[in-house]
């Protein structure tokens, strides 16, 4: 079973990055107008309008019989695989903004390791939490 991200997830992160970028640009412009407007602002705009949509378009979560696979990345693509026997528990995390968009993030925890799955639809996140095949300890 494969889950992909709704457009709302990209929008949520665009809002977050925009707020941080606005703060960063304000600070940088105060120190140096040239660096602020010619360097920081274009980078932030590129991240918000080009990188983030591409990132979430290519991001998928796949549940197989024996593992959870999370694939993501734009320039450098990574795939995280967590076999079910190693999975200890799963956690969903939400913020007020994400909750208003009916989105929830999921953290899968293994022994001294974890995978963070960015905000997906609340229904998908709840399904993931309740249906992960966490096997009893041997």
């Amino acid at each position, binding site marked *: 079973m494969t889950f992909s991200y709704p457009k709302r997830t990209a929008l949520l992160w665009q809002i977050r990055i925009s707020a941080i970028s606005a703060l960063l640009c304000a600070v940088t412009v105060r120190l140096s107008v040239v660096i602020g407007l010619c360097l920081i602002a274009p980078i932030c705009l590129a991240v918000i309008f080009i990188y983030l949509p591409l990132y979430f378009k290519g991001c998928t979560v796949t549940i197989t019989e024996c593992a959870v696979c999370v694939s993501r990345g734009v320039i450098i693509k990574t795939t995280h695989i967590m076999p079910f026997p190693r999975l*200890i528990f*799963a*956690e*969903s995390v939400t913020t007020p903004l994400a909750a208003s968009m009916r989105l929830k993030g999921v953290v899968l925890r293994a022994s001294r390791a974890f995978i963070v799955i960015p905000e997906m639809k609340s229904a998908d996140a709840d399904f993931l939490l*309740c249906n992960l095949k966490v096997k009893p*300890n041997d």
Partner: protein
Amino acid sequence: MIKRTFGAHPLMILRLMKPYLFVLILPLIRAVVQFLRQGRANGILSLEITAFVAITAVAIFRFRCILLSISNNRLTVNKGFIFRSRSVIEISRISSVSIRRGPIDAIFGSADCSINTEAGRPTKPDFRIKMRLEEAERLFSLVYGQEKTTVIKFSALRVALLAAATSSAATGLVIGVPIANGAAKLLGVALSDMVISGAQRISEQFNMFFPLTVNIITLLLVAAYGISVIITFFKHVKFKLITGQSRIEVQSGLFVRKRTVFKKHSVNNICLQQTSLMRAFQMFSMRVSIGGYGDSRGEKAVIVPAGRHNELKERLKTHFPFFRAKQEGIKPLRTKTNISRFLLLPTVFAMAIISLMLMAMIIFPFFDRLILFVGIVLLCVDLYYGSICLRDSKRSELVLGEQIFAAGSIGVTVRELYCSRNRVGSIKITETPADRRLHTCKTKIVVRSESADSVRVKNISLTTVLEKIREIYNVEV
């Protein structure tokens, strides 16, 4: 399974406000006290009050959002007010649950409940919530069920031996010094000066035997060690071990009573350890290593504070399959050459200590008594280390099979390790030039766990070790 839901105790509000204690709450209390005493408020008092009210309100909302529920063999933990999280844990994945009750908990009917899994950080419980005592007990019984148990109690004397054997002056200093400094600030006295001048007065009486500096340092270290012993004793006194078919429960503590439960299948390995003091009484302490145990470093739980070797095995072999009758082990050969190899390191250390001592006495003649004293102490430690090495030449052993057993030493501590074959993390075989000539090796067994308990068995037959590894792991080396 019937659903059960539990909330937090109101005392949890104070825990949630604790991170702001020094930054906001204490300065606010000081400002209010100043206002009441002198009728004068500092400029930011109103801001502090506003921040205090806001933090209290957030803490109350966070307290209201804490919810634990058990259904369908899963424990769900909901927490957070602005940033909400919901954790779903299979009950079989819970490593341990512990309940801690201090004097304040006894007054308010609350208990500190810690739930641990292997996924958490080693020094911090995964979930630590202050609950009502009866709800915490009910959570316990729902997670672990009810089963027939055997209770094994241990006397205060054995706990005292454990405390004396495992305490250190360093721990005493780390705990005692901040308390002494805090007390001194509160009372407005120079407590540290008083302590040092007292130590000096006592040390002067032994000046003719030992240097004054040595006397003062020894006295302070002994005092710090005493503090550590007292704290460890009260932490473990009234020690009780309750074993069931599938679970183990450890209860200990006088002022703060701690009760921890874990499943037997969570146990990675068992260690029997004998420190130098325990060796004088011919006793061992038994510890188990559990994945994700508690908030103590190294994931170790004390199962038996002190007991004789045979007594431990007799009493606990039915509860731990590791203790069952083992096969014949691989032991070092009892030849003169092999025994002298065991005594090589202590001999080298002794020669080095004597050489350094003589050199130091020539270079620094003014400190000759101090150097002589330190040298004698080091030689005594080396002598003891030599006795441990001699013991290893007779008693060290390695059994490789379905159950792994390794007996050796780590420094001056005698250690025996028991675990099942599939809990071994790594086996390291080392051959020095002398080993290659005599066809022996040093084998180190490391258990697959965060604490990575290990034992090294020296100077045993390489061929036999490789044969056994091939047999049980199907690995050709």
